[in-house]
């Protein structure tokens, strides 16, 4: 029992210090914006870890290509304008990861209001994004730090529950 308490305390301490140090080194908590209705402070150095604006744009180009080719999502993205979508996603990810961009596109709620999006669709998109990041050699920790910025959007994007 004593061991259990000690272990619990240790793990929460290490987690807490990890979270605290992550937050103290970053920019202050961002405000809600069209880029994200559920802001999460980006991990330090995330924007640079993705290669800055050039790297993010290349990642999004690859990502949009994969979305259109993925058997689960191709139908949903069939009519999407690839260049425009990649450009909007780049602005969004650039801004959310701490870069100097300002995303001016639709909110996630508006962007998906005209289509049916299930949790399965959302998860499938996350997997495709993971594949894109793998292809560009983004380290696993950095991948999760980006996903942490995007994950809460499921509340606005998934509209079929």
């Amino acid at each position, binding site marked *: 029992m004593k061991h259990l308490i000690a272990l619990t305390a240790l793990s929460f301490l290490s987690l807490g210090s990890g979270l605290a140090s992550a937050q103290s080194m970053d920019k202050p908590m961002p405000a809600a914006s069209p880029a994200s209705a559920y802001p999460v402070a980006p991990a330090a150095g995330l924007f640079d870890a993705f290669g800055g604006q050039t790297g993010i744009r290349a990642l999004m180009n690859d990502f949009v290509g994969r979305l259109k080719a993925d058997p689960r999502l191709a139908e949903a993205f069939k009519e999407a304008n690839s260049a425009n979508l990649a450009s909007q996603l780049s602005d969004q990810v650039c801004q959310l990861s701490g870069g100097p961009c300002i995303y001016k596109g639709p909110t996630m709620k508006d962007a998906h209001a005209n289509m049916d999006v299930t949790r*399965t669709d959302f998860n499938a998109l996350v997997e495709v994004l993971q594949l894109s990041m793998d292809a560009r050699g983004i380290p696993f920790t950095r991948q*999760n730090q980006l996903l942490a910025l995007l994950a809460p959007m499921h509340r606005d994007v998934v509209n079929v529950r």
Partner: protein
Amino acid sequence: MKHPHASRSLPKSGLLALTAAGALLAAAPAHADTGKLLLTGGVSTIDGAAGGGLSPWAVIGSQATGGETGVSAYVSRAETRDYGLNAYGVAIGLNDRVELSVGHQDFDTGITGTLLGLPGLHLKQNILGAKVRIVGDAILDSDTLMPQIAVGVQHKRLDSSGLDGTLAALGAKRSGTDFYVSATKLFLAQGILINGTLRATKANQGGLLGHGATLGGADNGYELMPELSVAYLLSKQVAVGFEVRAMPDKLKKAGAAAGLGDGLRAGAWKDVFIAWAPSKNVSLTLAYVDLGTVVPATTKNKKQTGAYLSAQFAF
């Protein structure tokens, strides 16, 4: 009248075959019909619910996500210094909201059975489980500290065996029900998953030695047992971690009253594990377990440490 108990433990070759099948499935193209991200359904606990190896988590089992139904099956084996445990079962996940599970455990009592005059004794238990997700999303709510919370029950029933008389004498019942609440959260940016479970139980050694005890004024009531799992994601497909599951110690007093000293005392179950999910259909878990002392009277007070291997198949 003692009946010779035919050994029905899973032969080693059987387990090898299962692992091979798992490896084959892993090599096959991963087009699961159901939608959870890898490893986010947890693995199968020894009791059949979805979670870690020892503790049920708030996640709903199988690979199915909202609006889907999924099934998962598992087969597990643990070998400690004096005992062996086989477990297998099936769980169904409904709409990522409800989980129903049925599990079977076959515990080889080894030396303890022999010393009790029941050589080759196997204790077999069936566990019916149900779990409901109440609130929260363990994986995607990275902007809040709010965990996913679920409540569950596990009804456990020990088959009749040569140990019936001993259990009755100790005042332990052969069936009982556990109630638990779990809170699970994946801290996505850090890649760490934490689960805390609080279980109301009377089960001795998870039910393998019955439920409760009355001999010698033992405490026969429900006790609240804390359980903790911590997992660190090494990659999309691999997680490592540890678990601790506190155990009630009801038989200790009863054992003393029966003249065994503290020969029936129990200790917390713990493990350190590595879980690998090569595809959405298969996951394998390997662990080093420590089940504390299990009937130390007949096992020379040894801590039951050993290996645990589990394969889970999800559809």
